[in-house]
């Protein structure tokens, strides 16, 4: 048994996409493996694969069925061909990223006008706004995955004092809104219906189409929030 090998399953999600899953769990070391494997596949593309993206504990690949079939053994389905290639890839050791993850500092204004759920949040968690800011800005979060919306980073984990489930009914959320859902924290890159508890807003553009860096955050990045005033927000 290869010492690098985590248990995994490979299953189709349709007839032109597969997922390789390392367990249905949020776990830092599994997520690290996922990110490394994702970079490995991205750096050494599999013929016929047109899209590859990681999530918490899995990697999904979209492929062109005809191209994969052409490269595979005649009788094998495209799915079987991709599965075999992935199994072979999993036997290869992953190359750990030697560089430290990038630390991105993100300004957040926690004033009520930017935080529609803050009032209720503080009552339920029985903390003051100052305590919430201190707790939310103290942790360095990791981007576990990007999904849901362009550039939406799922970050974790938040201090248990500010863990709070999603709202039962989604509401419209402004671009830049910073929210909490369970142990996760995240930023809405654009206006969207959403169920996360909104506790503040950043003036940074998380998704900026047409600009050089259209998507600010990447899977694996480290993030730290810092508090800014209303005036600083307006001047940003």
């Amino acid at each position: 048994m290869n010492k690098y090998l985590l248990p995994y399953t490979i299953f189709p999600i349709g007839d032109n996409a597969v997922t390789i899953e390392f367990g249905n769990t949020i776990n830092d070391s599994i997520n690290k493996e996922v990110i490394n494997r994702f970079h490995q596949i991205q750096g050494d593309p599999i013929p016929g694969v047109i899209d590859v993206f990681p999530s918490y504990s899995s990697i999904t690949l979209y492929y062109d069925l005809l191209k994969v079939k052409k490269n595979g053994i005649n009788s094998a389905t495209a799915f079987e061909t991709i599965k075999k290639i992935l199994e072979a890839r999993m036997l290869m050791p992953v190359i750990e990223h030697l560089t430290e993850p990038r630390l991105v500092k993100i300004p957040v204004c926690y004033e009520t006008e930017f935080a529609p759920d803050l009032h209720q949040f503080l009552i339920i968690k029985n903390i003051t706004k100052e305590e919430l800011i201190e707790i939310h800005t103290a942790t360095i979060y990791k981007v576990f995955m990007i999904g849901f919306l362009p550039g939406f980073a799922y970050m974790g984990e938040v201090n248990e004092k500010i863990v709070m489930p999603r709202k039962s009914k989604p509401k419209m959320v402004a671009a830049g809104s910073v929210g909490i859902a369970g142990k996760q924290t995240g930023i809405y890159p654009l206006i969207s219906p959403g169920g996360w508890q909104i506790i503040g807003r950043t003036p940074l553009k998380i998704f900026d189409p047409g600009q050089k860096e259209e998507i600010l955050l990447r899977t694996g990045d480290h993030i730290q929030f810092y508090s800014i005033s209303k005036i600083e927000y307006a001047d940003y």
Partner: protein
Amino acid sequence: MRIIKEGILDSIQDVGRFGYQYLGINPTGAMDKYAMKITNILVGNLPTEAVIEMHFPAGVFMFTQPALIAIGGANFSPSINGDFIPHLHPVMVNKNDVLQFHKPVNGSRAYIAVAGGFFLADWMNSKSTNLKAKSGGFSGRKLLKNDILKLYPLKKYPDHHHSFTVLPWKADTNWNHQIEKTEIPVLDIIPGNEWERLTEESKKNITTSSIEISQQSDRMGYRLNNIPLATSTGEEIISTGVSFGTIQLLPDGKMIILMADHQTTGGYPRIAHIISAHHSALAQAKAGDKIRFRISDIETAEELYIKQQQHLLQLQNACTFRLQEYYKRFAK
């Protein structure tokens, strides 16, 4: 071409934007890619070229230069300058010709392809409009009145003075030839990773009942009005990849089928996936229509898809030949 009157949701779409889901950029693209490809092939384009996708009521368009066009997908009863034109034929139009659509005869998404394609910049290697991200396509949004879509000039066009000419060949196929000719379309599904979570009764329910597509259906997904399904475990799913045609089970037991504008990831159980060869029929279904599901497998799904693509290749060869002949004889 100029938009004289806007449609309810006309947008530029192609096969979709792939390779950027790691940034959360969802693929979007045409809802009915098969119909989109046929429409492109009729005018001699690459099957993957960008087209206008329309819903009913569709827009009214005026051509500002001669163009070779085709209308495919849903039949919305198209006319040029008030004269009805057939669906799925190449049509040579002239400057100032006006194209409009009168009533939805069948299907729910129609396509306009223009020879040479639209003169638009790519965003992340695609011309598809990502409506939510307000990017790609034409200004990242649906087409509005007075928008002008630039076309590439036709290299050759007939030397005639009357307005438009319907070319005498057609695609002998459309989206609805893919599925069994039953009153209610039967769509093949392959069981998803969470299929086994369903109770035996719910599994049976899926394949034995006719299921209505609810009014809450759009380019993102179709919500179904099914008898609520039950699962034997309530274990949560961590957000993970999904695809076009994925059927997710919502907490209330109803199903949702993910369509072209689906998000990159989802956290609901993936109980099944509709096979690609049947996406076309699915994309042409309307809110209020009924559908049925039949269990299939990956082998059959791949075979049907390959067959469908071979069919497109044959059509492409035939159309290329006819167009070359046409240009030789009638066009300068």
